[in-house]
């Protein structure tokens, strides 16, 4: 059922653009994202959010016909490069988007920029392109990677925790996450552990946490790893003893639905929530549910916002991208659109300054488990690298 709805939506988007192409060349948008492997749901949500924005306008963004080409990178940088080559050389794509993982972004983005196209990130935004390496045609509609974890550090402060045990997988994003958390967390670090990538058994780490007796635990274990950890952590009876404060990547809708009660009480930070009360968000959540029959995740919101950001610039230039690079760029910078997160402002390095929300997973009276917004923990949060960027 899910498939049919999606495929008809896809098909209508495609056929609309094809019908239109007979009249005027549509603007081509290349989306390289992760659709297969265990992490495939991230790309699926980004894609669906993005395409929802396109189908809302009947195949247009900002009044301009667009053609969205979607390819799966299989979470492999090599594949990402091949697809980028194909999009840029064969299809002459003018705008690129879609990459989920921070090891693929550094492969795809430089190629895109070198070819004279624009890149608008719906997810990953590693630090190398946020500081000295920032680029005028590279825009981010999500967050700078570190901000995810910095905001968790801020939240932990606000909750009054004085010492924390922190753990993450032994890879770059994991190390960045712990550094990001520590940058803002004012308390002590009771212990720090790096786990194996794709680890399934966490008994040893859990025993270490118990032994360290911290006030709270921060971890960055996205996807399956987070599910493994949460199930085992809650079974060991530690969830209430040493509460978890994490970033949205370690507590998304899919993780919640896979662990259910084991998620109750977990606190997390995010820049968007399905509960946000603004008109754009209500329309988005309703539209997404109607189109796909499921509740949108934070990734879907990012895909949607990325499309809306592009739409705002296309509207300003009347559909010109390469033909009016300066106009398109300054329109993107203005970011004149109603974001589902309420406000949307870009810092000088083209990364958004988000309001970060503190959330807590609670069990409602009817037994459903929801991630409720508790408060705003950081307003207009600028990332740590923006000052090193030479852009204005």
């Amino acid at each position, binding site marked *: 059922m*899910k498939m049919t709805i999606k495929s008809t939506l896809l098909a209508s988007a495609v056929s609309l653009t094809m019908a239109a192409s007979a009249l005027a060349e549509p603007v081509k948008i290349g989306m390289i994202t992760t659709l*297969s*492997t*265990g992490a*495939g*749901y991230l790309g*699926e949500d980004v894609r669906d959010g993005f395409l929802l924005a396109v189908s809302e306008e009947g195949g247009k963004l900002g009044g301009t016909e667009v053609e969205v080409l979607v390819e799966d990178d299989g979470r492999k940088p090599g594949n990402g490069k091949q697809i980028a080559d194909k999009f840029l050389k064969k299809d002459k794509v003018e705008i690129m988007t879609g990459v989920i993982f921070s090891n693929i972004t550094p492969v795809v983005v430089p190629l895109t920029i070198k070819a004279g196209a624009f890149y608008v990130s719906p997810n990953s935004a590693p630090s190398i392109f946020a500081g000295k390496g920032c680029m005028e045609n590279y825009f981010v509609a999500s967050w700078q990677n570190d901000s995810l974890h910095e905001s968790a550090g801020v939240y932990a402060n606000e909750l009054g925790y004085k010492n924390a045990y922190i753990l993450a997988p*032994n890879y770059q994003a994991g190390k960045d996450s712990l550094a990001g958390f520590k940058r803002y967390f004012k308390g002590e670090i009771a212990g*720090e*552990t*790096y*786990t*194996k*990538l*794709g680890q*399934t*058994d966490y*008994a*040893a*780490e859990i*025993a*270490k946490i*118990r*032994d360290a007796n911290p006030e709270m635990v921060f971890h960055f274990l996205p*996807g*399956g*790893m987070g*599910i*493994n950890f949460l*199930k*085992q952590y809650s*079974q*060991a*009876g530690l969830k209430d003893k040493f509460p978890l404060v994490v970033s949205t990547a370690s507590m998304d809708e*899919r993780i919640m*639905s*896979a*662990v*259910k*009660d*084991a998620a109750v009480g977990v606190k997390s930070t995010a820049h968007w929530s399905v509960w946000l009360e603004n008109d754009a968000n209500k329309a988005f959540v309703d539209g997404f549910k109607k189109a796909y029959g499921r509740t949108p995740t934070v990734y879907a919101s990012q895909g949607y916002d990325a499309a809306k950001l592009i739409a705002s610039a296309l509207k300003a230039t009347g559909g010109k991208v390469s033909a009016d690079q300066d106009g398109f760029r300054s329109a993107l910078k203005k970011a004149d659109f109603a974001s589902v997160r309420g406000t949307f402002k870009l810092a000088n390095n083209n990364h958004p300054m988000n309001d970060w929300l503190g959330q807590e997973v609670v069990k409602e009276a009817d037994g459903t488990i929801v991630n409720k917004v508790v408060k705003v923990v950081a307003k207009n949060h600028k990332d740590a690298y923006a000052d090193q960027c030479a852009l204005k």
Partner: protein
Amino acid sequence: MLLLLEQILNGVQLGVFLFLIAAGLTLIFGIMGVINLAHGSLFMVGAYGAAFFTQLSGSFTIGLLGALVSAGLTGIAMELAIMRRLYERDHLDQVLATFGLILFTNELVTILFGRTPLFLDVPPILNGSIEIFPGVDYPVYRLAIIGVGILVALLLYLIITRTKAGMLIRAGSTNRDMVAVLGVDIGTMFTLLFGLGAVFAGLAGAMAGPLVSVEVGMGEQQLILAFVVTVIGGIGSVRGALVGALLVGVVDTLGRAFLADLLKLFMDSASADGIGAGLSSMSIYIMMAIILILRPNGLFPVAAQRH
């Protein structure tokens, strides 16, 4: 000291869990001489079966039964369609064909169940924890896994050494034609045996479900470990698989638990964390290499292998 004891227990528990996966593998491997990479897929089928039927019925017992049946049936289907054509082939063909099976099963499960991991919780009766050492609560479910592991070990041992079927099986693996001449239908027996191996994989998957994410690809993460276990122990030896599993479990757990702290005695803490994590993830492969170099046929070599 208590922490060390607890970590050793954690290691043993992981070891028993690995034995659960390796049991079916070593059975098929040892008796039928087939390398089955798709064993991890059967593990996944078990976990999905358990999650699906538990959700449907609300009872973990029914879920467990569902897991065993679905894994067993999948195994029998695999045997009839593909595996039986591979017995007389070399290991290379077996590796490749079963590699193809992994690709197929993974995509099929993705299409059927989507990419969201399924929910499966600990059954209420095994929920909670008991104090095994002062101040250390140990989850009952992990103790239950140890119990099931021991049961499986006993069961396997009895099947192979004490039953008539076991004797025929052993005879069949060394001399198929002779047994066939004696009027035993080796074909059917191998089908059922493969199904039994699949049931063991399904049992491991169902037991793992409440502890880990029930998702596509969950089998491959365990598959390689299970192979390490069987190879260290000596292919086809149940005793070897048990010892190998315990070794791998304890080495892996203790590495994760203490290596980084140990290295901090010699170097700064940041590099100790990095190197410690790196070394501990390599530890079991290093151990396997050392054991094989010293004992090229594993710790408990089984005599009279075909090939």
